[in-house]
């Protein structure tokens, strides 16, 4: 449990204090954000939580099992479209959220297993490129399945998706709870927060389980792992299916939150974005992945909102439109962070040790980096 953030370490003295403080912070976060930065930012925080869920799902595949998946967003799409098709005027179906979400998750899981079964004997870059192709195939189908039979409504996407609701309690409008008025975004925040914490908990438990150790063994040396009696194919398949399930859940939440899905939301760029969260933050380390998710959602938004005014002040006019600047800085950030810390901002301590032990040359080059973080 060395790489668990302090506040999650179960039997540490005074840990509960930090825990309570963090819990309070998370509870008041939407209200504080709303008051300080405006309602739009609460939405961004909600999205950050969604992306953290996605990144944690991908972390199982990439971080734990070491399988590079560049088509992860396909599972997100499966979850989102399942919810969109079963809970919108598209087919006139309005199944309740808590029934559709497991269906979406199961479907995503099946897709994960379907993709994994034939491809898992491949390794490294080959697997990356096959998953990338799979992601694109799903997107192209979503884009084109509107003729001759209209299933996905093509590039226009599906709108007017039902809000997330449990019995008569809908998250789509403001609700009065204990005398506090909670707007829709706040309600979604608490739901997403609860699910994110659940995903973190599952990830933590998986990491220290038999399965988790098997994944890491495969990541480090597949031949050795298989010699130790691990059924590598099944265990890898399990990683794929489990990661896909998380993706499917996040997709369902996304569709319900956004009220609209279109193939555009599931481009390769999204897959890359999620992968960047995992790698930038620190593969295999839950804290790192959460950090990566927060950074990559919040920083670009801050840039988008801040870049215009700053340029006004500096140059007297807007030279580069904020959206382009956002992408530019995002690209530069990826390069700089990787050059500066190849193992991520907050690397898993275990991987760090392995790097030092096995790669003498790399270690010499990176001594300063690791000394600083120790």
């Amino acid at each position: 449990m060395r790489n668990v953030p302090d506040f999650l370490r179960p039997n540490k003295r005074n840990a509960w204090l930090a825990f309570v403080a963090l819990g309070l912070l998370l509870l008041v976060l939407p209200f504080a954000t709303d008051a300080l930065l405006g309602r739009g930012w609460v939405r961004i925080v909600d999205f950050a939580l969604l992306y953290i869920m996605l990144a944690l799902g991908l972390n199982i595949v990439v971080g734990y099992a070491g399988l590079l998946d560049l088509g992860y967003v396909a599972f997100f799409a499966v979850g989102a479209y399942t919810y969109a098709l079963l809970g919108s005027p598209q087919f006139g179906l309005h199944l309740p959220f808590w029934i559709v979400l497991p269906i979406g998750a199961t479907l995503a899981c099946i897709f994960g297993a379907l993709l994994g079964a034939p491809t898992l004997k491949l390794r490294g870059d080959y697997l990356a490129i096959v998953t990338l192709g799979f992601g694109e195939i799903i997107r192209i189908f979503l884009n084109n399945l509107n003729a001759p039979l209209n299933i996905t409504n093509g590039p226009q996407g599906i709108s007017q998706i039902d809000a997330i609701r449990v019995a008569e309690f809908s998250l789509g409008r403001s609700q009065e709870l204990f005398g506090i008025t909670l707007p829709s975004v706040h309600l979604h925040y608490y739901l997403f927060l609860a699910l994110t914490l659940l995903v973190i908990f599952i990830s933590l438990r998986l990491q220290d389980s038999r399965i988790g150790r098997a994944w890491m063994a495969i990541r480090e040396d597949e031949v050795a792992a298989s010699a130790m009696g691990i059924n590598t194919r099944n265990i890898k398949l399990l990683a794929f299916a489990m990661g896909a399930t998380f993706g499917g859940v996040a997709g369902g939440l996304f569709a319900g939150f956004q009220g609209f899905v279109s193939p555009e939301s599931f481009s390769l760029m999204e897959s890359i974005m999620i992968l960047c969260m995992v790698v930038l933050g620190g593969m295999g380390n839950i804290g790192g992945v959460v950090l990566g998710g927060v950074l990559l959602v919040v920083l670009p938004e801050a840039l988008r909102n801040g870049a215009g005014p700053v340029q006004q002040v500096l140059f007297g006019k807007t030279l580069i439109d904020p959206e382009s600047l956002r992408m530019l800085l995002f690209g530069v950030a990826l390069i700089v962070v990787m050059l500066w810390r190849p193992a991520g901002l907050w690397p898993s301590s275990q991987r760090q040790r392995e790097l030092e032990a096995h790669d003498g040359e790399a270690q010499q080059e990176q001594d300063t980096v690791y000394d600083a973080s120790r």
Partner: protein
Amino acid sequence: MEILLQQIINGLVQGSVYALVALGYTMVYGILGLINFAHGEVVMVGAMVALAVIKVLLATALSPVLVLLLSLLAAVGVCMALGYGIERVAYRPLRHAPRLAPLITAIGVSIVLQTLAMIIWGREYHAFPQLLPNASHSIGGAVINEVQIAIVLVAVLMMAGLLLLVHRTRLGRAMRAVAENPSAAALMGVNINGVISTTFMLGSALAAVAGLMVSANYGIVHYYMGFMLGLKAFTAAVLGGIGNLRGAMLGGVMLGLIESLGAGYSGALTGGMFGSNYQDVFAFIVLIAVLIFRPSGLLGERVAERA
């Protein structure tokens, strides 16, 4: 029958472009064992630079052939510099880092190049001027124009030149040695960094030529054009057996043919259910099928378990 012939011609032309770009991927992969994710953007930069030079030179009274040649030279020059730069910035510092790190920097370079192109040249589609008379010829009912003939010819010439370079020259021998075993090559006195830089520059030069070809063929240049092209070309490289030059050429041409035949006939075969708008799917289905049944590619010798 005319349709079949037409699709084969289209496939050959498109396939030649794929092959040229695929060579860039396969050379880098052969030497470093890495996917150069930014390679597609190099193609785009080549096309953009060529277009910019043509626009400037068209105002002067130079002959169109000279304009085309100068723009090609400029594109090749800029792309070679870019290839060198990409290697220095994104790959060399990370040669011993965890495997995913250079992949992420390459993605970063790709995003930066794309965004820069968008800032400099805008989001709109640019028309690529037609410099030379482009007469169409009819072969058995199918049409091929002179630009397309030129594309296939130039592609064949460049590939022949590259094969000669790799198999008959000192530099080529050094490249093969580094691909085989970098440390042994270094002990034999090969300047590894120099060879790797040269490889990147060669691949980028081919990409620049390919960029000019695509734009001349379709008459359109766009900041986003490199992405899908790069993806397809990588598919072609894998199809032929990555790391293998002849494989990249074969894979490129085959992918072009499969795509154009697939797009031409899938609509009729599936009763209109899956039309030509599924063209991109064929490439990936082929890719997945190849990797499952013959992971080393058509001409590859190495096995897939080489992660």
